C-alpha cells in the first residue's frame, strides 16, 4: 500500500470523477475505482437510450481510465438499494405534493453508505468523489465548504453526509475550477472526455421528464389525478389541471390557463387534488421550517444564528436567521424569498462553510 493510503474512488465515467481518480493516483494514493450501477434506463420507460451517469458507455469509459493507469476497477450493483430508497421516495414525495431532491437523498443514504461498506471490504482508508467541494477538519468536526469554482460548487448536495462518513472522504476537485480540470483531462490525452457534455439530468429520469417517469411508475396515475381544480388563494376555482403531482411550486409554464397576467403555482394540496395558483407576490415567504437536520460545522446551534440559506441547487442564497428546535430549524428571512418548495433541501452557509441542512417541511 502507498504511504498516502488506499482510496476507493466513485467513478461515473464522466470527466469530474475520472479526473478525481487520476489526480489521487498522481498524488501517490493507491486508487481503486468503482462505478455504481444505480439504475436501468430501460425501466424508466420511453427513453431512447442509456445516457449520462448510468450508461454502459460511461462504465466502459471509467474502466478504460483505470486500465490506462493500472489501478483496479469494480462495478457495484446497487440497483435494488437505489430503487427502494431513492426512487420509491421520489415517487412518494411527488404524490405527497412535494418536490424531492433525489441527489441529496442518494448521497446521504446510498452512495456514501455503499462506498464505505466496499471501502472497508477492500481495506481502503478513504473514499473519494468528483464533487466540487472542500472538506477540512476543524474543532473536531469535518467541515464541508464550497468548491473553489463557485459556478460548479456542489456543496449543496452534500449537507446530509454524517460526520462519521465525512471522516474518510476526500474531494480532490475542490481546489480546482472546472476549466482547469477540463484542460488537464485534455493534456492527459483524454480528449473525448474533456469535450464530453455535462449531464444535469437525474440519472433515472430520461430527458428530465419527471412527469413521464411518474406516469410510467404509478399505474393509472393520470386517470386518478386528472381534472382537479386550479384555485386562487381565496378559494375561487379558475380551471382544471392535469393532476397535482405534475406541478411544482413556482411553476409558471405549462399551466395552460389564461388569467391575463402571469400566474404561478403557489401551493399543492394533494388531499383534495388542488393546485393553488397566484401572482408572483404570493410565492414570497418570510419563514420556513426545516426538518431532518444534519449539522456539519457545529454540533448544535445554541442561539439564533445569521446565515446564508440556499433553498435550491442554483439558488445564490438569502441572508436569514436560524434557530434550532430539536431536530428542526426555524428559518426567518428578513427579505422575502420566492417559491419555497417543501421537499427541497435548505442548506445553511457561514461564509463558504456549510453549517448544516435539512428538508424544507413547510413554508410558513
Amino acid at each position, binding site marked *: 500500500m502507498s504511504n498516502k493510503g488506499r482510496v476507493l474512488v466513485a467513478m461515473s465515467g464522466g470527466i469530474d470523477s475520472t479526473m478525481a481518480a487520476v489526480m489521487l493516483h*498522481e498524488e501517490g494514493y493507491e486508487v481503486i475505482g468503482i462505478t455504481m450501477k444505480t439504475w436501468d434506463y430501460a425501466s424508466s420507460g420511453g427513453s431512447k437510450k442509456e445516457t449520462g451517469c448510468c450508461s454502459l458507455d460511461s462504465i466502459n469509459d471509467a474502466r478504460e481510465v483505470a486500465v490506462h493507469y493500472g489501478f483496479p476497477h469494480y462495478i457495484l450493483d446497487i440497483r435494488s438499494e437505489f430503487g427502494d430508497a431513492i426512487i420509491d421516495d421520489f415517487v412518494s414525495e411527488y404524490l405527497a405534493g412535494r418536490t424531492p431532491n433525489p441527489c441529496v437523498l442518494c448521497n446521504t443514504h446510498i452512495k456514501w453508505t455503499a462506498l464505505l461498506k466496499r471501502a472497508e471490504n477492500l481495506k481502503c482508508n478513504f473514499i473519494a468523489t468528483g464533487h466540487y467541494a472542500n472538506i477540512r477538519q476543524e474543532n473536531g468536526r469535518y467541515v464541508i465548504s464550497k468548491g473553489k469554482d463557485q459556478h460548479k460548487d456542489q456543496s449543496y448536495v452534500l449537507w446530509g453526509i454524517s460526520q462519521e462518513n465525512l471522516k474518510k472522504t476526500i474531494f480532490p476537485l475542490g481546489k480546482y475550477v472546472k476549466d482547469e480540470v477540463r484542460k488537464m483531462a485534455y493534456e492527459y490525452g483524454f480528449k473525448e472526455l474533456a469535450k464530453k457534455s455535462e449531464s444535469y439530468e437525474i440519472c433515472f429520469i430520461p430527458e428530465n421528464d419527471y412527469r413521464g417517469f411518474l406516469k410510467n411508475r404509478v399505474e393509472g396515475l393520470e386517470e386518478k389525478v386528472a381534472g382537479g381544480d386550479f384555485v386562487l388563494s381565496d378559494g375561487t376555482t379558475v380551471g382544471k389541471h392535469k393532476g397535482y403531482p405534475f406541478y411544482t411550486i413556482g411553476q409558471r409554464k405549462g399551466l395552460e390557463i389564461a388569467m391575463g397576467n402571469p400566474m404561478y403555482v403557489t401551493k399543492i394540496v394533494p388531499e383534495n387534488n388542488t393546485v393553488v395558483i397566484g401572482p408572483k407576490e404570493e410565492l414570497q415567504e418570510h419563514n420556513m421550517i426545516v426538518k431532518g437536520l444534519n449539522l456539519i460545522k457545529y454540533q448544535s446551534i445554541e442561539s439564533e444564528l445569521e446565515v446564508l440559506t440556499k433553498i435550491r441547487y442554483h439558488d445564490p442564497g438569502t441572508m436569514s436567521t436560524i434557530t434550532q428546535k430539536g431536530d428542526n430549524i426555524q428559518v426567518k428571512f428578513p427579505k422575502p424569498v420566492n417559491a419555497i418548495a417543501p421537499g427541497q433541501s435548505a442548506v445553511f452557509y457561514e461564509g463558504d462553510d456549510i453549517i448544516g441542512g435539512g428538508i424544507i417541511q413547510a413554508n410558513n
Partner: protein
Amino acid sequence: MEELFRQIINFSCNFSSLEQYTISNTKLPTITGLLPFRHITVTLVCAVIIMLALFGCRKVPKGFDKIKDASEVTLSVICMRYDNMDNTYIINEDSTYQKLLVHKNDFTSCSTYVLPEIDFANYTLIAKKTSVEGCNVKIDKNVYVNSDKKEYLYIIEVDETGDCTDLIINMNWMTLPKMEDDYELVIEVK
C-alpha cells in the same frame, strides 16, 4: 495560412461557379459572352470581402508596430497550478522564471517537469491572468511597441460565446524580444 488561402480560393471558386450557373439558367445570350470577365470579378470581390472580414478588423493601435517575433508559451496545466500565481508577470531572467516552480503540482508525473526553455538573453516572458465566464472562449493575443512613447502594449482580446457560465482562467504567457529597460508595458484585456 496556406490552408486558409486554399479554403478562401475554393470558397470563392465555388461561389462564382454557383453565380455562373445561375446566370446560365437565365438563358440571356447577351450576358453569356461576359461570363469569363464576370467570373474573375466575382472571385476577386469575394476574396477581398473574406480577407477584410478575417483580417480587416484587427487594427494595429495608432503609433504602434506589431511585434512579429512575439509567441505564446504553454505551461503544463497538469503540473503548473495558476490559482496562486500573480496576475501579471514580466520575467527577464531564468532564475526568476524557475521560481514559478513553487506553483508546481505535487503529482508523480510532474516530479520531472521542467519549464519550457526560454532564451532570456534575447527574450522577455510576460503574462496576464484573465478570468472570463462562458462556454467557448477564444483568446487572441498580440504585442505592439511604440518607440516614441517607449511603450509596449499587450492586447488580449477575449471572445466568449454561449450561455453557460463556466469560469475560464488563462495566464496568457507570451515571449517577446527582450524588452527595453526604460519602456513601459501596458496590458489591455478586451
